[in-house]
């Protein structure tokens, strides 16, 4: 045995020697990098830029909704022709803003920005791998996303405006150029951009799954994986199954738009003249779209939940409550995600019996979601809570997830949905449960792993200030919005000044808008903190949060290949916090049970015998065994 180990280490030395000599120029190192950490940062920075654009758009249309009489001439330098001479926002551009806000936030920020950043960054670091299974595919994934970003960004500057049929691009609005100025070139660019985006997500997702399954280090069995990795794995599987379906629906839409087929179009009259399209079904598109669209909600949310599990356990200094229940509930949510899509279509005239089936399945999602909610709260219960900004945002996520989820139970009822469909109640619901909650997950992740990403600390006081202002701001925006929705305000309307019933809610609308602007301004604290800390932040220690997972065993400034020397083996799960009898209140995953005899439970003493076996296993080191 020792001879083999000796051979290994000599071999390894030769290899690492070789690796230090591969000189990378600026382009290989920072631009077309195949290093998962650089790609993660590229995703993060791109995501932040998109978030600023996307949220700015929402502020513009919130001003229009809350203060319909205000003079927007001051926006003329930015929006140009979209502001009329009397200082009014162009109604067509209003629709385009709503559409682009949805598209950008759902796909470019909370899918690519969140999954792309943390799956890339944490998967190899937490499972003990040198890099992703295919660095090249990973790089391609980012650059396809970048290409999609450029095309989508370009579409904003079209003379006719970007796509304006809503982020769900229902035909015939999206299929006919006559339907709206944005349905011409704007929609074409939207579809092109999204096709590249899907390719990017598939390349990324395939890589994540392969890496998690094949490149775990010695001893990292599935029941020792941190919950973050479970969440990223399940997210990637969801994407792998649902994005091809979006591609499929987009493909048929492109056929309808450019080749004259009638998949989604039938019996349409424009100015009294019938179009040649016969036999299509617009509802078909909705079925295909929501088969992606609903899993997409969980693609957005699950990474945030995974990050929260990790951050809450670390900062409550307690093992996560119900580790297996957490995995089971994520699997349950993922499974249910594929069989509930029609609850977005209760009012399309579907068979009421079918409606009750989908209602039943939808309401079942409350069960695994509640399991997760309870597990977070019970993990916090009697913990020695450390209120780092990451922890605050994680607790905030739990709060938003619960309060947004509750209204989901109301909306899931097919009868109640008749009243609430396409009102601001829906808008408030999904902004809380998937928008704000996932954004909080993103913030929690950034605050928590910033030291690992950039080797420096963010300012905690500014982080806490950022949390409280955002937390209060988000609730000030979305709680009143539920009332506006129950009152019957439909979403995507340009203004509400011409109806009697809307008059008495005008000040509430104004309040929502002011709260939205307030929350938007609070994000600049984060932006400043983030960019300032990259260059000037306090130097980070190796394990600032005293955490158990493997990424904190790497050097402060992680080099290519993540670990100097060999990859650590794993002997225990990642949640051994405050273990009775232990010297410290945390025992990292790479500490064997034979070194912690004072805190071992009886069954853990038995595991000491297996340590030799784990150590004897292959290193599974990509740098040595070129895959």
């Amino acid at each position, binding site marked *: 045995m020792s001879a083999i180990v000796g051979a290994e280490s000599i071999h390894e030395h030769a290899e690492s020697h070789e690796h230090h000599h591969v000189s990378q120029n600026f382009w290989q190192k920072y631009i077309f990098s195949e290093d998962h950490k650089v790609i993660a940062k590229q995703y993060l920075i791109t995501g932040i830029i998109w978030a600023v654009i996307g949220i700015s758009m929402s502020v513009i249309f919130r001003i229009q909704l809350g203060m319909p009489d205000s003079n927007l001439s001051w926006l003329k330098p930015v929006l140009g022709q979209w502001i009329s001479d009397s200082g009014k926002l162009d109604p067509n551009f209003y629709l385009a803003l709503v559409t682009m806000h949805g598209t950008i936030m759902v796909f470019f920020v909370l899918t690519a920005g969140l999954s792309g950043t943390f799956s890339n960054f944490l998967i190899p670091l937490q499972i003990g791998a040198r890099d992703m299974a295919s660095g090249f595919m990973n790089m391609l994934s980012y650059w396809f996303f970048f290409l999609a970003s450029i095309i989508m960004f370009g579409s904003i500057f079209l003379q006719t405006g970007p796509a304006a049929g809503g982020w769900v691009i229902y035909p015939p609005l999206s299929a006919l150029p006559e339907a709206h100025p944005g349905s011409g070139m704007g929609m074409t660019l939207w579809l092109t951009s999204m096709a590249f985006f899907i390719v990017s997500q598939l390349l990324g997702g395939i*890589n994540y799954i*392969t890496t998690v*399954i094949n490149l775990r280090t010695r*001893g990292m069995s599935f029941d020792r994986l941190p919950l973050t990795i479970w969440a990223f794995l399940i997210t990637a599987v969801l994407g792998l199954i649902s994005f*091809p379906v979006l591609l499929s629906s987009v493909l*048929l839409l492109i056929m309808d738009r450019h*080749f004259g087929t*009638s998949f989604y179009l039938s019996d349409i009259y424009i100015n009294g003249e019938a179009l040649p399209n016969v036999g299509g079904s617009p509802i078909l598109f909705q079925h295909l779209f929501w088969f992606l669209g609903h899993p997409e909600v969980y693609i957005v949310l699950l990474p945030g939940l995974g990050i929260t599990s990790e951050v809450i356990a670390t900062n409550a200094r307690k093992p996560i409550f119900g580790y297996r229940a957490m995995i089971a509930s994520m699997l349950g949510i993922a499974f249910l995600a594929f069989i509930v899509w029609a609850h977005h279509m209760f009012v399309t005239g579907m068979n009421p019996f079918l409606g009750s089936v989908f209602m039943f399945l939808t309401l079942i999602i409350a069960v695994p979601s509640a399991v997760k909610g309870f597990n977070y709260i019970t993990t916090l219960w009697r913990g020695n809570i450390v209120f780092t900004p990451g922890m605050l945002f994680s607790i905030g996520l739990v709060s938003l997830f619960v309060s947004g989820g509750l209204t989901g139970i109301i909306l899931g009822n097919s009868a109640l949905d008749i009243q609430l469909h396409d009102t601001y109640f829906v808008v408030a619901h999904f902004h809380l449960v998937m928008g704000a909650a996932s954004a909080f997950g993103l913030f929690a992740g950034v605050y928590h792993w910033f030291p690992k990403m950039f080797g420096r600390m963010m300012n905690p006081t500014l982080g806490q200030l950022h949390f409280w202002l955002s937390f209060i701001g988000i609730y000030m925006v979305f709680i009143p919005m539920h009332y506006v929705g129950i009152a019957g305000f439909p979403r995507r309307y340009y203004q509400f000044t011409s109806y009697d019933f809307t008059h008495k809610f005008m000040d509430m609308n104004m309040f929502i808008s002011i709260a939205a602007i307030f929350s938007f301004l609070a994000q600049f604290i984060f932006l400043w903190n983030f960019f300032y800390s990259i260059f000037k932040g306090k130097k980070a220690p190796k394990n600032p949060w005293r955490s158990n997972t493997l990424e904190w065993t790497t050097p402060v400034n992680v080099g290519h290949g993540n670990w100097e020397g060999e990859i650590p083996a794993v002997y225990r799960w990642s949640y051994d916090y405050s273990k009775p009898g232990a010297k410290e209140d945390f025992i990292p995953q790479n500490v064997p049970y034979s070194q912690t005899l004072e805190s071992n439970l009886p069954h853990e003493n038995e595991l000491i015998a297996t340590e030799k076996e784990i150590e004897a296993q292959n290193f599974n080191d990509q740098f040595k*065994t070129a895959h």
Partner: protein
Amino acid sequence: MEDVQQLKMDKEPQETLSMDPVKFILWLFLVTIVMLFASQSSAYLVRRAEGNWLEFQMPTIFWYSTVVLLASSITMHWAYIMAKKDEIKRLKLAISITFALGLLFLAMQFQGWKDLVEMNVYFVGNPSGSFFYVFTGLHGFHIISGLIVLVFALFASFKLKANVKNLRQIQICTTYWHFLDLLWVYLFVFLLTFN
């Protein structure tokens, strides 16, 4: 280098999971293609159930093209066996035949489209016809990608010694080609059943 690793693998216990990541990536890629066609099939069925559906007889040439593609699968498998036995000459021959059969299949599919046009079934028109063109077109597109993979495998076979890495390339190519074959059989039966 590869050989050394192989030897060591025999002596040591199993690693955490001993699956080849590249092959695994291929299988996940196949999952996405399956989902693409599964969604198309379900769209087809949902649309067909709504009525106003043009029914037409599938041109007979699609029967023949199916046979051609099945034959190409057999030659592909022959190539795989030859690669394992290190018989480079026959390997080259087998891959070349597979490639030629693939091209013939594409030509026959194109002829099938022409026959459809003669039957007054057009791409633009009743969705039943449009779907037929989309199904065959999408599959044809994947066949083209399969042909590109075949070209790479052919290049690999020209390297004198079929080592482990080259064998893996042939393996991946074989898996993909069999998959495309199977996919066509599925589409063929599907279109035949629900015309």
